[in-house]
């Protein structure tokens, strides 16, 4: 998946000459925490975040509209030359950028101009969607050996049951590096027949598992 598919294509923006007060007002009204600052050609000059503003304001003055900080121009407190992304970046690259550089948003730039914005919240929602958690389904976790062709063997079973697989996640197995854990969400209320067949094929199906309790 590429950034273009998850970015907000119409971000709210500010000019460098807007005041901090205007920035704060826009953030509150539109319920956003990050605003790119651009010039007339939509070149990204900086990013201002709610946190930048809070840090610039002594707490006693936060609700004091006449404070000089409120009347300052955003260019004075914005982060200049921020990290930016490209519409064709992969979503996982952006995730890594967020994680490593501890920023909360990336203006997306193409042809030198601002074309969108991605925030950590967008990314989190994409993750939730990737797990399939927004559609009715049952989750089945299977411990498999880390060898080629395993996924094919597993999907054969789902295919036989005419089951719609909503998502597949692969985790490393903390107990044994030779193994992987597949977490599969299937559109069914009754996964019992599939579990039975998976076990018949020799797979280790982890069911709601609590040490010392085995189901079926």
């Amino acid at each position: 998946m590429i950034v273009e598919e998850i970015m907000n294509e119409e971000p709210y923006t500010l000019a460098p000459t807007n005041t901090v007060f205007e920035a704060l007002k826009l953030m509150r009204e539109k319920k956003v925490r990050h605003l790119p600052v651009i010039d007339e050609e939509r070149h990204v000059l900086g990013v201002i975040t709610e946190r930048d503003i809070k840090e610039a304001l002594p707490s006693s003055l936060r609700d004091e509209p006449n404070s000089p900080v409120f009347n300052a121009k955003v260019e004075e407190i914005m982060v200049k030359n921020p990290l930016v992304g490209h519409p064709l970046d992969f979503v996982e690259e952006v995730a890594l950028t967020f994680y490593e550089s501890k920023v909360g948003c990336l203006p997306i730039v193409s042809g030198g101009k601002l074309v969108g914005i991605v925030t950590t919240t967008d990314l989190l929602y994409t993750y939730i969607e990737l797990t399939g958690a927004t559609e009715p389904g049952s989750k089945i976790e299977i411990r498999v050996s880390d060898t080629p062709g395993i996924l094919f063997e597993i999907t054969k079973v789902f295919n036989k049951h005419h089951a719609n697989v909503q998502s597949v996640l692969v985790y490393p197995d903390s107990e044994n590096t030779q193994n992987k854990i597949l977490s599969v969400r299937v559109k069914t209320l009754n996964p019992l027949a599939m579990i039975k067949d998976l076990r018949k094929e020799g797979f280790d199906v982890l069911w709601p598992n609590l040490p010392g309790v085995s189901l079926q």
Partner: protein
Amino acid sequence: MKKAVFVYSPEQLGYKFSDTHPFNHKRLTLTMDLLKNIEALDDLDIVPARVATEEELLLAHDPKYIDIVKRAGHGELSEAQCESYGIGTEDTPIFENMHEASAQLVGGTLTAVDYVMEGKVEHALNLGGGLHHGFRGRASGFCIYNDSTVAIRYLQEKYNARVLYVDTDAHHGDGVQWSFYEDPDVCTLSIHETGRYLFPGTGNITERGNGQGYGTSFNFPIDAFTEDESFLEIYEKSMREVFEFFKPDVVLTQNGADAHYFDPLTHLYGTMNIYREIPKLAHKLAHEYCGGKWIAVGGGGYDIWRVVPRAWSMLWLEMTDQQLPTGPLPQAWLDRWQPEAPVPFIPTWEDPNPLYEPIPRKAEIEEKNTQMLAKALHIIRNEKRA
């Protein structure tokens, strides 16, 4: 006034996917036979389920979807043609006359509503209903039409009522919740096994409603392996506080019986105890807040031999103020059905004690559930303090 009616028509048994499908309405027959055996259900208590009209189904469903259900049930459509409507799948296969049978289940719940709202009885029971996973334009999880959604809209339109929907099925009542997610005059309360592994996967405490309806959806996802005491703690506290907060005119309870240890599709460790207690409190609060107006429907329940007949009998007995029985089940009932049952019956109203091996980490599971309850109720506890 008569206490309660038991809504039932043999046509409700037409809702049948196949002989091997886990959803099996033979449980209605088993339950009624058990109640008749202990002389707790008289033919005079039974009223026939009417058939919901198309106009009534449209209160909750798309016309296009209703048309698909009709045509599929008359052999006019292939599985592939219906699949995007959730029909013709392993969960919800096509069966003959599926529209008619489904409309009969919805009609049963509407019959129950009319009896209660016209003041003919205080309470009414339609065990054939409770199909809480049905969506506006799609079948899901064994449910074709969502009788509760239709009934709640009907209660709003015809009787202008403020409705509290309570769902104690082990699965999240997603279909009903989403139907009223933005409606401030319908409150949904669902207690279910967490969606971590279990269908439908939703029902998180953070699902609280949207827009005008924010704060009128309540979810109490309990952990797998939750036992009676913890289940009942969550049930009792959530019910009292939500009734007090919402002050409904009428309560509709969905009484799935699949939170029992024996149930093959879930991982909760309930015993017959919870099925004695659930209707007691619903009954009490219906009188305290709603002048007694209580409509109850069935729901899940996939151990149809050992669990559902006993559990649902308790519901009817409580509704009609009859003493909840203890000790042996009637021998005649056991003799009649044991030959057909693939498992040996529990011969008493209570479950044997203990029913299962002790659960490791019991204390942690209880602690986690209690924490969840506090988070889920935070929104109303906060408002009360303010």
